[in-house]
């Protein structure tokens, strides 16, 4: 017995590396490490030899040379004389723009559809079920292409707005829906505009303060302070008041058809809209399922208990069900956001110039620097994913049920 539990000291034999549990784990790890190093060395060696054979090298110098191509959607200043690096940054910003827009929209659609799937209206329930199943079970690439086609074919071209009797007119004379995109008025900052903006920020802070105060009064005295209508008033009134008192410093620049296109205003390009909506509707279907699962995960006893306490149905939802459901909903929701960011790389199918289109597309084509471009591309997505997961882990830990 004692030999099994207490092997003799100091008599290390080579076979113990395999048979003795104390050393075996080191053996395995050593083997794994060596295998990894060998594999890496093999790949690296091949890379070096292949590059040498073709007379190429790994160099990131191309990033600082002029790109030579134009990009249509430029969040920062950029022209064809800018560097490839700047083109990549433009692409990154465009990726982030479409990802953020799609995340917000997908959440709205998803929550709406998820709640509607639990509606007591049979027709609505069925329609939402059809929506969810149709979008969940068809590849997002096909949806992007279909929505892009719908945009292109069903909306009028700018030329339809031209002439004596145009076949299309602008919506309320402010917004033009064309198959090149949607043109909306752009704000023009006059003198004093910053005062208006400051007022707006201040009233937002005021709304938060009001809510906090209401919560404190509720906990201290049990008195419910109305917050909804005061918040709405606070949101609009001060800003509008200051705006008109100062003589309307923030003007609107309306889109206007000049030459081939609408000029002025802000153009939301068709490719952006197609990608944005396709991602939002597709991911919305998944979020709807998460929301539904989250709400259904809360046991019926909770609703009944809340009802027994005399809470009204909307308060049951907002005070009892949702806070608990959110704990279930948010982790998959965040991974859906991650999916949106990753799926936005399909922008390439509709010609939206995201980072896959600039760095992994035209730059790669023009410079032939495939390895460098693809590495940078992966690095970018990795950084985004890891930062979102980190935030999510922090959140998860903060809402974890405290078990005693």
């Amino acid at each position, binding site marked *: 017995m004692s030999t099994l539990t207490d092997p003799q000291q100091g008599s290390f034999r080579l076979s113990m590396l395999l048979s003795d549990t104390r050393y075996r784990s080191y053996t395995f790890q050593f083997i794994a490490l060596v295998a990894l190093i060998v594999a890496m060395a093999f790949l690296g060696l091949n890379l070096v030899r292949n590059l040498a054979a073709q007379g190429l090298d790994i160099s990131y110098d191309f990033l600082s040379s002029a790109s030579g191509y134009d990009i249509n959607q430029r969040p920062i200043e950029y022209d064809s004389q800018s560097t490839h690096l700047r083109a990549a940054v433009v692409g990154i910003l465009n990726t982030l723009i479409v990802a953020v827009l799609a995340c917000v929209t997908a959440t709205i659609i998803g929550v709406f559809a998820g709640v509607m799937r639990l509606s007591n209206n049979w027709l609505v329930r069925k329609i939402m079920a059809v929506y969810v*199943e149709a979008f969940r079970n068809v590849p997002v690439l096909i949806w992007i292409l279909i929505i892009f086609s719908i945009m292109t074919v069903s909306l009028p071209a700018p030329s339809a707005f031209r002439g004596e009797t145009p076949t299309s007119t602008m919506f309320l004379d402010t917004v033009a829906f064309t198959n090149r995109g949607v043109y909306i008025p752009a704000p023009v900052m006059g003198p004093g505009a910053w005062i208006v903006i400051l007022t707006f920020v201040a009233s937002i802070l005021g709304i938060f303060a009001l809510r906090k105060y209401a919560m404190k009064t509720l906990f201290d005295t049990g008195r419910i302070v109305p917050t909804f209508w005061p918040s709405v008033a606070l949101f609009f009134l001060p800003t509008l008041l200051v705006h008109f008192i100062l003589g309307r410093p923030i003007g609107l620049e309306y889109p206007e058809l000049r030459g081939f296109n609408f000029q002025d205003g802000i153009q939301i390009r068709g490719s952006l809209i197609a990608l944005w909506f396709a991602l939002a509707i597709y991911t919305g279907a998944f979020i709807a399922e998460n929301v539904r699962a989250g709400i259904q995960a809360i046991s019926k006893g909770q609703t009944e208990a809340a009802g027994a306490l005399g809470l009204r149905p909307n308060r049951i939802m907002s005070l009892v069900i949702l806070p608990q459901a959110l704990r279930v909903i948010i982790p998959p929701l965040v991974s859906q956001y991650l999916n949106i960011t990753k799926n936005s790389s399909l922008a390439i199918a509709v010609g939206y110039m995201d980072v896959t289109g600039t760095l992994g597309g035209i730059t790669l084509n023009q410079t032939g620097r*495939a390895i460098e471009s693809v590495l940078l591309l992966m690095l970018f997505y990795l950084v985004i994913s890891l930062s979102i997961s980190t935030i999510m882990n922090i959140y998860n830990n903060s809402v974890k049920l405290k078990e005693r």
Partner: protein
Amino acid sequence: MSDMHSHSVGFVRDSVIPPAPPPALESGIVKWMRTNLFAGWSNTLLTLVALYALYLVLSVLVPWITNGVWNASNIRECREIMQGSGGGCFAVIADRWQQLIFGFQYPEESYWRPSLAFILLFIAVAPLLFSKIFPRNLLILTAVYPFLAFYLIWGGSILIPIMAMVGFGAGYLVYSKLVTNSFAAGFFGGVAAAVVVWYLGGFITGAMPGFLALEPVASRDMGGFMLNMILGVICVSLSLPFGILLALGRQSDLPVVKGICVVFIEFVRGVPLITLLFVANVVLAYFLPPGTSFDLILRVIIMITLFASAYIAEVIRGGLAALPKGQYEAANSLGLDYTQSMRLIILPQALKISIPGIVNVAVGLFKDTTLVSVISMFDIVGLIRGPILASTDWNGVYWELFGFAALLFFIVCYGISQYSQWLERQLATDHR
């Protein structure tokens, strides 16, 4: 007590009233509509809005389908026949359905082979998916299927898949003989036996290349929906063992192994599949020994498998974590070593509860196989965007083609997800 009552109650009914039918408003379809469609003004409003939305969609969709043209040789003919009736030009599907399904290079006289392989797929997976209905020994069909499907789809001599199968069989036999002693002996013995059989088999197949041979088809001739199916099935099946290994590695106590697995999983899950496909397409060649030229389809299979195994590993990790700690402790207390406890106690249970998650990953992966069209492979989407829409005959037929592709994917994915829900219900009964 009873006396008091008999006096105070003046009338006692002595027969049961026959049940009256419910009021007209509270029965049948009317009641159903009142509770499900018109309960309260907000509900009614919802119904009306929903009806209007439905009308909008159907008013476009119905004429599109009913006025569709199925017989035309090109889009101009189609438009002539339609005369602006709003119908769809489904003739493109009638004209090119073979290309859409099988790709444009698969020999036409051999279409029965992938079709047969597709039908056999159902027979092969049935014992796996409905383990309660089918006897366990039918699983042999599942084991034989990959070799049969390879023979059917790729063709060539039947000896190659048979030898491969014999090799696996020999490996399994040796493994099952030796595994009672130690897992390592069984594993390495099995591998050695398989390698020996394959090496010897190489002489036989080399000597008789034409034995029972079907016309060989190169993998780059695969295309259309068939390519999506092939990629989906192969990558999911291959990624399962890798996923299990990665999940075990991530749960392991060995820091080096754990570190490698964590880095791999997080890296793969952090980048979009399309960048991995770029790697397969434009970068991977630089990392292989000079002169080796892998097929593009093989490189893509490798990349998608890596991608899928990271996701499956996470699902299985969830399953491992969901097992009560008592199971691990019980296995240890029986004196089982690591491989035994995993093989006999932990994995069977963990895999069982991970099945719905694995199926979800499989559906997602199958949909993602369309991304190969971006790297110039002619899967169904690639065929539509490339040769079919570029041809003079069908330039401009978008809805019908994409609709057809969407329909095919919907049928397959909806079927799988229904199965997954059924399975979840089956599994759920055990716990409640």
